[in-house]
């Protein structure tokens, strides 16, 4: 698999990354190097190996259904650039 410059620009847009035009070409090259390396790994036959889905052998670390958190409106809003009446205030989003 390989990416071209237009795909890099598109993915950057989706991820809200602002790339200067001059950054696109080197980034495309770097990403293709990484993808090339992954292609190399794909060459290994893993047909008989179970997929590894986690490095920690834990499965049922579930939480009990209890209210143990919340009621910290001040903390939640503390880093907000703007807040009002207990809400985050963000630039108007018009649908």
């Amino acid at each position, binding site marked *: 698999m390989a990416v071209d410059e237009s795909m890099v620009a*598109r*993915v950057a*847009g*989706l*991820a*809200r990354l602002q790339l200067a035009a001059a950054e696109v070409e080197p980034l495309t090259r770097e990403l293709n190097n990484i993808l090339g390396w992954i292609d190399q790994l794909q060459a290994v036959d893993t047909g008989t190996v179970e997929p590894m*889905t*986690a490095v*920690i052998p*834990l*499965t*049922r*670390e*579930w*939480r*009990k*259904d*209890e*209210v*143990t*958190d*919340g*009621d*910290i*409106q001040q*903390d*939640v*809003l503390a880093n907000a650039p*703007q807040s*009002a*009446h*207990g*809400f*985050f*205030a*963000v*630039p*108007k*989003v*018009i*649908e």
Partner: protein
Amino acid sequence: MAETYTIEGRTGPWEVVLGLEVHAQVISKSKLFSGASTTFGGEPNSQVSLVDAAMPGMLPVLNGECVRQAVRTGLALGAKINLWSRFDRKNYFYADLPQGYQISQFQHPIVGEGKLEIETEEGGPRTVGIERIHLEQDAGKSIHDLSPSASYVDLNRSGVALMEIVSKPDMRSPAEAGAYVTALRQIVRAIGSCDGNMQEGSMRADVNVSVRKAGEPFGTRCEIKNVNSIRFIQQAIAYEARRQVEILEDGGSIHQETRLFDPDRGETRSLRSKEDAHDYRYFPEPDLLPLELTAEFVEECRRSLPELPGARRARYEAELGLTPYLAGVLTADQDSADWFEALLADTAKRQGKPPRDVAERAANWMTGELFGALNKLGVEVADSPVSPAQGGELLALLADGTLSGPLAKQLFEIMLETREDPGAIAEARGLKQVSDTGALETAIAQVMAANADKLAEYRSGKDKLFGFFVGQVMKASGGKANPAVVNDLLKKALNQA
């Protein structure tokens, strides 16, 4: 087979193909991945943990109850439970999604294929396939009309567990889509996995609509997002299908897109701002372990399921001999069915008869008298002022002749107001049917004496006057006389010349 629903275009009839994605909020005290409360209507941002606010370094921990409820819902829909599933990140940017991604299940959902029986008035019973159910987080809520210059964001809903229940494209009319949501709502309410409250947004649907000529492959679909009532779902489908037919017949083509339904105008509109958003760049959620279930856990979930509405309805028809109509009304929601079963058990016990023998009478009384009264009072059956045991007592008093039909109605009115037991009311207010022949014979004699002229007419062949005498005796008894006994006694007395 009933008539198929079609959109009549200039070039002939078009078939409508529908698939629904229903988002159902899981009933749980705390959120899917945090310990913050899920209660509806709290102060803004008061039910938010630092996990829900996506503060750096916070880690999600899965709520086991939400897993259990998703599995129970899957089992209730006869679906395959996947013992191994996984969470994925769905990436997009929006002001009310603080993480910048939603934790969802994309490739490996917890529940696989199942099915749901639906029934429409015109179409009869039909099966709709379920494609999958997965668990995911809800987003926060944006409020656009509180400030002229800003949108306000409340994260209380952020992180609340949702089940996304995805149907196959098996529905062909607005009525079927409505019946599907109704049936689904009955099931999740019956098993207690979702409260089904569409007004508060606990259940909402994305509706996929496409049109085609009969026998052709599926057309391109449009998705109408977040429709929150069954009526709106049906209106949105009718509008959207008509819109697509007009475009196609004018030689155009449908672009796959997300649309919004505007209930005020009854139309759907394109949501152009999200054109790019369809590339969600899913990848496995690195902060969570795969979700592994044991067969014992699934079995426990299965054992915890109550009787489902469809099975209950079939049982009412087969075992209790109720008509499909009565069985349908009584099983439409869990509260009605529970009330009816309590009434039936009490009635059968008091009258010493098998339930089947008293079921129809009890069902008729409940759907007629009780529901009528509750409707007038604007009260749900769960809050009925009359209890099932009181209903059973009333039916017993009717059955053993203590009460006549009209007296029972009168007494029921008093029960609704006073909440007293019918036996006590009948005793205290003397509302008992008089079947005592001695007392009635006296009354009859008095009536006959007072109406000597009518008596003579009757005896000379004017049979119709019999009704007049019945009425007079009933009146003399204050409406309490047992009509059957009055009839018998009167016949004897009048014909004794």
